[in-house]
């Protein structure tokens, strides 16, 4: 598969954004949601990909470069380019960073389970990175800022309680193709915006190969399905391939659990999140 057309191909018009407007809202969101709960700082796992790089740019603008800590947490098989891209973002923004090689703790665990497949190994790494982010957040009195975009969240293309875990997420309502637009407008290095998206959980991993479709096409389908509530029949009439529609709808449906709290057995008259409903920003 060729490199994604993140900047070269025209963007599907309904998903085009005014980057300045979105930037203003997201910078305001980070400032407001961090400070009103009594924090000044955030930590993030900076992979060197476009999502976490974009969040680093937004958080730096919102909170100042001294209030952001980038965690760079490579495993021995990680693409060296991921690390060097992350370091370039750190240098460009002038933010703090902490680099920890997670190989020892991952390998210590996996040594007992040599049969563990790529998914188990990848999940273990994603969750190891999560525990480091949460530990550093306590040590540094910071919130963990999330980097999952809307396309990933809808497809469930992430590790629950791993990279999907965070206290606040500024980009969870932006599709991948919108992340590209905003990242480009904010000055994220072009090489990062243009490289093939990868979770980098194993050598040569590619989001688009693994998902089987290009983000450009997935986002168009999700736009009609989610934003416009097209039916399956209407999507077919729109020209989308039936197998493509079926697969994307299946992913959205089957991964709903990743977007919710654990299901709680109903017993009392006021069960958390069902009939005990308070805003998160309660009293803020």
């Amino acid at each position, binding site marked *: 598969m060729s490199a994604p057309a993140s900047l070269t191909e025209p963007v599907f018009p309904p998903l*085009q954004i005014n980057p300045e407007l979105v930037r203003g809202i997201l910078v305001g969101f980070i400032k407001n949601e961090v400070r009103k709960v009594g924090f000044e700082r955030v930590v993030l796992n900076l992979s060197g990909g476009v999502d976490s790089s974009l969040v680093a740019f937004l958080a730096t603008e919102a909170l100042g470069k001294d209030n952001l800590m980038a965690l760079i947490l490579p495993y021995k098989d990680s693409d060296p380019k991921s690390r060097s891209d992350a370091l370039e973002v750190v240098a460009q923004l002038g933010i703090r960073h902490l680099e920890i090689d997670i190989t020892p703790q991952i390998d210590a665990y996996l040594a007992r389970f040599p049969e563990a497949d790529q998914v188990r190994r990848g999940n273990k790494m994603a969750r190891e990175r999560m525990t480091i982010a949460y530990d550093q957040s306590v040590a540094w009195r910071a919130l963990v800022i999330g980097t999952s975009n809307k396309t990933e969240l809808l497809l469930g293309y992430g590790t629950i309680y791993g990279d999907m875990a965070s206290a606040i997420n500024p980009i969870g309502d932006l599709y991948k193709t919108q992340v590209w637009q905003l990242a480009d407008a904010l000055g994220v290095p072009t090489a990062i915006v243009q490289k093939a998206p990868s979770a980098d959980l194993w050598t040569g991993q590619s989001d688009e190969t693994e998902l089987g479709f290009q983000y450009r096409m997935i986002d168009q389908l999700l736009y009609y399905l989610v934003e416009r509530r097209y039916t399956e029949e209407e999507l077919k009439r729109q020209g989308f391939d039936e197998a493509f529609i079926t697969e994307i709808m299946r992913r959205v449906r089957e991964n709903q659990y990743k977007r919710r709290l654990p299901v709680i057995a109903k017993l009392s008259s006021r069960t958390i999140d069902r009939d005990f409903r308070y805003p998160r920003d309660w*009293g803020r």
Partner: protein
Amino acid sequence: MTDDGRLSVALAQIDPALGDRGRNLERHRQWVKQAAETGASLLVFPELSLTGYFLKDLVPDSAIQLDSKEMRDLAALSTKLDVVLGAVIESPDHRYFNASLYFSRGELLHVHRKVYLPTYGMFDEQRYFAPGDRFRSFATPFGRAGMLVCEDIWHLSSAYILSLEGVDMIICPSSSPGRGITTDERLGTAESYALVCRTYAQFLTTFFLYCNRVGFEDGANFWGGSLVIGPNGDIIAQHQDADEALVLATLDLADVRRERLANPLLRDERLELTINELRRVSHERTRKPY
């Protein structure tokens, strides 16, 4: 108000704390003081300015009763200038209303209980609030006014009824969350509201004061964009940004008379015809067997 018929109004485009009435009352006092220093005679706060918007199960905890010390504290805000603010009102039979309160000279002059409670998409008001059952205008020291809270203005009949009561001014406190990202300069919601407010002002030949809040609640942003519009539909004052601000405007109240002479839409309005036709529509709807 000055002797030449000019009225200085102020819109307090604020960011209330969610579910903290005490802190918000203190902030209201500061904004009232600031508005009074500008010489404003009328100060408008946004919808639910005393409590914040997405209250959910905090609604009962945030409520006040009309006959209470809390209400007297609010009335005391209006000794120097008239004040419109938003609060949760609990009726004696324990229904909770999303209400807009008009205070003048230390007294409660009028209460509007929001009639149209949005319950769709990101909104869930009917789960927590009881709906108001009337649109009434009232006399203020500056002419006849009517209040509509946010979603109320998305129903044409609400402003129409107030118009036929002869209002000079419609006051709309709002907590409108921003959504609709495109390549446009502004959010889709901001564009829609500005269009509706201007349309009402021009169609009904009345001043229109729209005060929207700012800030974030559980990730939702409120876009501000408060507006003062003249009876010819022209924007007199507008705050485009989503930051806390006191939006000031001077209204020449005689503009209403001048506009209605130039454009006698209200004179030509056929109230009886409208009532008859609506009655017929209602009758025909209820006659349908299924």
